[in-house]
Each structure stands twice: as structure tokens, then as C-alpha cells.
């Protein structure tokens, strides 16, 4: 009868002696140094940029305890098109920002580019992007711009034609204006696509956001009322009448990688989501960050 008791108490003593050894816990895996590369090619500039820096591992868990970015300034950065290679050079853009810059490089619509980064310390990174082909946009009925008061309950229809390779697009609609009391003045104001409320409950303009390219010919509708309200707001701002000079329409088309990164890094652009995670996306092989491209086409309508 005593045997079970003895055995139990021997086991108990063993467990008490050994069980108290706590395993230290950290959610961190062994840190692996990796390069972070950001480059967004654009047709709206003659110079292209690339940021290249290191990820890090703070001593504790506070990521803000590391306040400086460690750039890799010694890497070789080349972007290649089928016909030409563009060498990027390390440049100090500001006292704290290093960037690789390729001057005199304006990417061509519809062209594929390959990124190659060779770092003697951190290995080789690569990626690719295809600049969306040229797109077009037009206003279906320009009289609504010229005589908006006659169409105040109508919409200004902007017809787009997206180029090959566009996975997302964004239309921006600007009013170029002058002032009645100063005809030499030139201003530009973006027209909101709608109005909402800000966090204080005040009326706030809402501008178009990047949209998924679900078809080759999307149509964007701007209420004429928004156009008129913008004119009213400008009149109030300058305390004088304004003189509309013309409309400028921009069509921004982005490639797949930039579209995906932009949305994923910005909460899927989904205000109705119930998810609370912060996922990541990268198309950089052997690294982090993004290599993407966007093409800007414009239409200008002079009144």
C-alpha cells in the first residue's frame, strides 16, 4: 500500500525540483540582416530614385529605439531595359537621406525593367516591373465644364482608356483658374469626387483613390455640383471672383507590384474591413521593399 505513495512523492519531488526551470521566451527568431529596397519608376520625372537600407533588430521590443537608418551606399544598382542599362549612383539628398539616383532616365510606357542590386556585404537583390502602356482620358461632354450652372445636377463623365499592364489607375481632375481682380494670377485646385466628414464632423473633400483596373475603359463620374462648389470655395478663399482657365486631367496607371504594395501597406484601402492585421508585401527577391512603376498621362482642356 505504501508503494504508490512512495512513488508518487518521489515523482513529486522530481517535478518540483525540475519543473520550476522556466524557459525564457522571446517571439524573435534569430535576426537575419536583409536589405530593404524602394524604387518607383515614373514617367513624370527625368530622374529615378532608389532607397537602399538595412533592416534592424532593436535590443528590446521597441522599434523606435533605433532612430537612424543604415544605408548601404556601396552597392551597385542597375536598372535594365531591353535596350539599355541605367546605372544608379549614391547621392546624399539631405543630411540624413542617401539615395541612388539615375539622372536622365525617363522610363518608357509599356517597357519592362529589371532591377539588379549587388551588395558586397548583403548579397544580390533583384526584381522587375513593367511600366503600364500609354493611356488616354477625355471628357465626354465639355460643355459641362464651360457652362456648369446649366448642368448642376449632372455629372462630368471622364472616359479612360487604360494601357497594357495597368493593374490600378487613378484619375485626378484639376481646375486651372485666375482671379478676376488679378488676371496674372494662376492657380490650380483639385476637384473632389465627393464630400464627406472629417474626424471633427466637418465637411471635407474626398478625392479619388487608386482603383483596381477591372476593365480597359473605366469611366469616372464627377458631380458638376462638386465643380461648382470648388469655384465657390475658391471665391471665398480669395474674396473675389475666380476665372476658370481650363481643366487638367491626369491618368495615373500603376503596375501590379506597386498596386499591391500600396494597398497592402495602407490597410487594403478598405475602410469597411474588420481585419486588424498589418500584412506585408514585397517583390524584391532576397530583400524587402518594392520595385514598381507608374505612368502619368494628362489631358488639358483650355476654356
Amino acid at each position: 500500500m505504501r508503494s504508490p505513495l512512495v512513488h508518487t512523492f518521489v515523482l513529486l519531488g522530481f517535478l518540483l525540483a525540475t519543473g520550476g526551470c522556466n524557459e525564457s521566451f522571446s517571439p524573435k527568431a534569430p535576426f537575419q540582416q536583409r536589405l530593404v529596397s524602394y524604387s518607383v519608376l515614373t514617367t513624370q520625372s527625368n530622374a529615378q530614385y532608389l532607397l537602399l537600407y538595412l533592416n534592424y533588430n532593436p535590443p528590446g521590443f521597441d522599434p523606435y529605439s533605433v532612430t537612424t537608418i543604415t544605408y548601404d551606399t556601396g552597392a551597385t544598382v542597375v536598372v535594365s531595359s531591353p535596350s539599355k542599362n541605367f546605372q544608379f549612383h549614391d547621392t546624399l539628398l539631405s543630411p540624413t537621406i542617401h539615395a541612388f539616383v539615375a539622372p536622365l532616365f525617363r522610363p518608357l510606357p509599356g517597357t519592362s525593367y529589371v532591377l539588379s542590386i549587388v551588395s558586397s556585404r548583403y548579397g544580390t537583390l533583384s526584381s522587375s516591373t513593367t511600366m503600364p502602356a500609354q493611356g488616354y482620358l477625355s471628357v465626354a461632354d465639355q460643355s459641362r465644364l464651360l457652362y456648369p450652372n446649366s448642368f448642376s445636377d449632372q455629372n462630368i463623365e471622364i472616359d479612360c482608356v487604360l494601357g497594357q499592364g495597368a493593374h490600378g489607375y487613378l484619375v485626378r481632375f484639376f481646375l486651372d483658374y485666375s482671379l478676376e481682380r488679378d488676371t496674372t494670377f494662376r492657380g490650380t485646385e483639385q476637384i473632389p469626387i465627393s464630400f464627406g466628414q472629417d474626424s471633427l464632423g466637418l465637411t471635407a473633400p474626398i478625392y479619388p483613390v487608386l482603383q483596381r483596373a477591372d476593365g480597359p475603359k473605366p469611366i469616372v463620374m464627377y458631380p458638376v455640383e462638386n465643380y461648382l462648389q470648388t469655384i465657390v470655395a475658391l471665391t471665398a478663399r480669395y474674396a473675389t471672383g475666380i476665372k476658370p482657365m481650363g481643366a487638367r486631367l491626369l491618368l495615373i496607371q500603376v503596375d501590379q507590384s506597386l498596386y499591391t504594395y500600396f494597398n497592402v501597406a495602407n490597410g487594403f484601402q478598405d475602410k469597411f474591413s474588420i481585419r486588424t492585421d498589418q500584412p506585408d508585401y514585397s517583390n524584391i527577391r532576397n530583400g524587402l521593399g518594392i520595385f514598381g512603376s507608374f505612368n502619368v498621362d494628362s489631358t488639358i482642356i483650355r476654356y
Partner: protein
Amino acid sequence: MTTTRTFPNFLLVLLFALSSTSAGLAQGSDVRGTVVDSANGERVSYATVIIQGLGRGAATNMSGFYLIPNVPPGAYTISASCIGYVKQTQDIVVGLGEPLLVNFRLAQEPVKVSETVVTGTARHELTQIQTSVHTMDEQDIQAVPVSAVPDIFHAIQILPGIVSTSDVNSHFYVRGGGGDQNLILLDGMKIYNPFHALGIFSIFDPDIVRTTEVYTGAFPPGYGDRLSSVVSLSTKDGNVNQVSGKANVNFLSSKLQVEGPIGDTYTWLADARKSFSNTTINRFLQKDLPVSFYDAFFKVTAKVTEDRQVRYGLQGFYSGDNMRSGNPAEPDYSWRNHAVGFTASGLVLGRVFVDAVAYETYFQAIRDAKNSVSVTPASTTIQEVGVRSNATLYTDSKDIFYLGFEMSFPTIQNSLVNSFGVLRQTDDLIVDGWFWLRYQTSIGPWQFDGGIHMDAITLMTQGGSGNIQPRLNVSRALFGNWKVKLSYGEFSQNFITVNNEDDVVSIFDTWIHIPEGLSPERAIHYVAGIDGNIAPELSMSLQSYFKNYRSLVVYNRDKVDATDPDYINATGKSYGAELLLRYSIPIVDFYGAYTWSRSLITSQGITYPPRYDRQHNLNLLGEFHLFDNLDATIRWEIGSGFPFSQTVGYYSRLSLNDFYVNPFVYETGTPYISLGEKNAARLPSYHRMDLGLSYHFRVSSVKGRVGVNVINAYDHRNIFYFDRKTGQQVDMLPFFPSATLELEY
């Protein structure tokens, strides 16, 4: 989102038809009645009533009611027995025609732990057929070694296949299922979060509970909208003999319970517990426990008729928890529960016994971010009104039909700051409806228990064979008391919890209805088991299971923009084996349960273990009867760690949110935590040993117990919560000595 349907009442017509048919075949009289505890009048569930010499018998149901149909006229001796009670016999004379009412009042006798867990020597009829059911009554709960005070969920966590984590929202996981896949019923009312924080207690004082049924898989028709398990609790009615009370005080909490009769018809019971303040605990024990809790229960029962056992009950239940940090940079949490229900039970239509409950249940969890930089404010509320009814139809043979339905109207309100940084508030009213048909029979050594459970609303709105769910349990007696059992069942679930799957440990889950366009979560259970006695003092139960999750709801990892759904359907599987051993000799009762389990989810081309995949779990407990009235208990549990995704580095991430306006190179990034392979790492293993010493005494009419307990005897740090963004770690209960004084009059 609102869905409405009218529930068909053809069930009542069918019930009436079946009842009329069976009554028409009668060749004798029915013997029926109730079995109650003589000390307090509480109904005794699953007692066995046998007419000796006739070979006929029945088991009492959850209401303590039994019915032996069509007994030939004659003189008999009838007995009622149940482990924990002294067997009682009566002489009866059965005539032809009117049913004979025979009630039993059984006197209690001590019960030991070896009798608490059911295997081949099961005392309950129910467990003879089902592979995965365990029943425990008050005495069983009291017999399980405790931390500071007895607790229902601590008691059931010694059962094989049940894994505890003490995480707030889902304290236990069953056979590789998620924490939200467990159906908790209190007198038929759904309870959405039955736990107090830090794994100290469940929210149910065991002194209010009469019987607990635990199904760890392949549960029968009658239980739905959950994929893994059912814990069904039946509460006491209150002492019919006299006003009595019970008080308990220990270093963590105090409680008071009083109960008694009002005339011959009514009984009442009131019970309340409250934790001591953190200041008090700190002063006594120098332990900083940032939690406080309370719970309360009341019930009034009216016993209207004796012959048909018609009872009405009104009960209410309330609980609350607060987890508050003194650090303004750390969030506070609070949880609230309540449920109010009206119950009715009794015999109608001759051989039809009906249990019904109309209820309102409420759960709310709030996260107050305070000045935290790593979490955001959030709240989730689920409020549900519903009605549930089950009819038991006794036939001329031993066969029994069950027929029932449940209609409920949950309203779910959530408020959270989503990934986009927007305060997202939802308010959904849903209609949920189920009905079921169940049949039990036996043929020689075989016993069958099966039927169908139907998700009526989904069936009507979406169709689909998956909403008609067949379930079957088969048992065959072998040699001795050995039995082999097989079970099959299909299950679905429309309400789930979601959380940030990237958290190391999540303590804030949000209840949602399955998003539109997605299938309900579905699972098929296959269970096989064998149990019996290896030796008179040693019993064994071995079960294996496989669950095929045909549909689960998980993150849509490919979500890119607002047009993509947040969640998608995935598939999964879990499988495992459970071994349960019990050894009992006069001086010691030993219990050991080992569970090996594996769970995997496959979604969008990758397969990973879910966060509740605990592969090994071992429960050992022993009760040593050192002297008369003096018992020592040891309980030890060890479980391998749960999966999580590791942090593999940090980097300054650019949002590029105005890339088309300004050169991105001038953007100031924000720190971002890179995660490694999903759920590829494991948390440290969980283990904890509790020790206890209890002395029972009686002074005049007062019974008492003095206990000394040590919780977490070797002070192992078991993680309760970890914030990867700040490194804040909250552990479960540390080494905690406690003394308990319990008085009962």
C-alpha cells in the same frame, strides 16, 4: 444584415402523431416518476431505475424523470440506483390503464474520484453508446483535486482530448478544434465566454451546478452551431427541505450561497462570488494580480404538478472581469456576461417529456487602449434571445425518439480600428434556427444512437446537403465490461471568433457571423474507441479521432484591396489519440490522461498549424486518503506549446501613400515588424502543479472544510499574454499559496 424565416411547426404535428401511435399499442401501464436527492430534493440525472425480475428499466433524464413504458400488470420490486447514492427499492403493483407514479428519494453516500470519469464501468446510460461523452455531477466536481476551490472547467479539463490554455476567450480546445468551437449551455442558454481571466476559475460556481455533460466529439443531434464540443450544465433548483447556506473564503475570493423552499411549490437559490481586490491580495501575498472578477446566480423554481413533473424556472446569471494595468501605456480589458432564462419541463401527451427554455444571453468584451502605442480600442458584444425545446418520446419498446428545435436571434456589435486605421463599427441581427430528430435503440449487444441535426435557416436560404447533418453512435459490448464504440457526425458553425492572426497570443477575440458569400465552418468527425477494465482496480479508455474540416474561415492572405474579401474558406484536418487510465485502491485514486493531437489548416496553397494546435497534453492527478476526513491532492498538467509566427526583423516601411504627388524618397517610414513563416514556431510548453490538503469536519449541523492549497507549486511562468510590439508579458497565476475555509449549514 438581417435574415428572417418562419419556423415550421410540423414538428409538433409529427410529435403528436408519434405519441398517439405508440400509446395505441399499449398492453400494460407505464411506470414513471422522478429520482431526487433526499437531502435537498435536487433531481438526480442518469439514475438507473429497474423493475427487478422483469428485465425492464430506464435511466432518468436531465430532469430526473424516467418512464418505463407498457409494464404488464402485476406486483414488482422496483429499484433506483446511482453512484454516489444508496440504492433504494420499492414494491409496486402495476394495473392496466392508468400510469403508475413511483418517485425515489435517494440518500447520498461518499463518492471517490475513481468513479468520476466514465469508461466501461459507466454509471450513465448515455455513456454506454457515445464515444466521446463524459458526465459529471456535483459530487464528481467536488472529488476532482482543486486549486483553491472546486471548479467545473478545471474538472473537465482533466478529461482526455480537452486542452486548456487559460487564455481568456477560449479556455479550452477540444480535439484539435478552435476555442470558439465549443458550445457552452447553462440550462439550455448559450454562454459565449464562460471564463474568468488568468485561468483562475470558470464563471460558474460548481455549487450551482447539478449535472455537467461534456461531449468531446461526434455529439448527437440536439446540439448544433459548434464544430468541436458541447458542455451542457444543468443547475440546481434549490433545497426543498430547508433554508441552507454555504460560504467559502480563500485568499483569492469569497462566496456565499443560500437556498431554500417557499411553501411546497417554490424553491430558490442565490449564489455570488467576488474576488478580493488587488490591493488585498498584494497586502497578503505580495502578488500583483491585475485582475478582479465577480459572478452571481439566482434561480426560482416552481414545481406545479407531481404526477407530470411540470416545473417552471426563472434563472439569471451575471459575471464580470476586469484586467487593469497600472501602467497608462498598457491596455485594460474587461469582460461581461449575463444570461436570463425561463425554463419549463414536464410530461405532455402521455409519453412525451418536454424541456424548453426561453433565454436572453449577453457577452461583451472591451479593450481600452489607454495610451498604448501598440493596440487600439475595441469592443465586441453579442446579445441573443432565443428559445430551445426538446421533446423525448418514449415508445413501447426501449426505443426513444428525441425531437426538438432552437430559434435564436443574435445581435452582434463590434467596434474596432481596422487595418486601414478606420474605426469600424458593425451591428448585425441574425436569425438562427435548428431542428433535430434523434433515435436510440439497442439490438442484442449493439446499441445505436443517431439522427439528423438541421441548420434550418442556412438550408432554406442557401440549400446544400451540408446543412442536413447525420450523426450516429454505435456501441457493441465485447467480453467483460469492454466495449467498442464508433461515432460519426457532421457539424457546422455559423458564428466564429476572429482576431489578429499575427498576435503572439490573442486575448481579444471578436465574434462575427460567417461573412456573406462564405460557407459556414463544417467538420466531419470520425471516432473509434475501446474501453474496459484491465484489472479490477485499473481501467482504460483508448480513443482515436479524425476530423475533416471541409470548411474553415481564415484570413484571405491574398487580399489586396477593398474589393477582396477579408476572409475566405479554407480546409483543415485534425487527428489524434487519447489514452485514459484510472487506478484506484483504498489509499489512493490515480488518474492519467494523455492526448496526442495534430491539426493543420490548408489555405491558398500553404499548410500550417492553427494557433490551437497543441500536440501533446498530459494530465495526472491523484487523491490520497491519508486519514479519515483528511485528503491530499496533486494535480499536474503539461502541454506542448502552441504555434505562433516569429518576429524575424524590423524595418522602416514606407507607405507610398502619395507616391504620385511627391518623390517617395522623402517619406519618413514607420517601423514595421517582419514575421517569419506562419505559425512555424512554438510558445513554451505549459505546465503547472497544484497541491492541496483538505480536512473535512462537522460541528453540530454545520459541515466544514479547511483546505491548504498551493497553485503553481513550482512557480512556472505560463504565458497568458504577450505583445510583440512592446514586449509586455502577462503570465498566468504564479506560485500562489492559499487557505480555504468552507462552511455549510
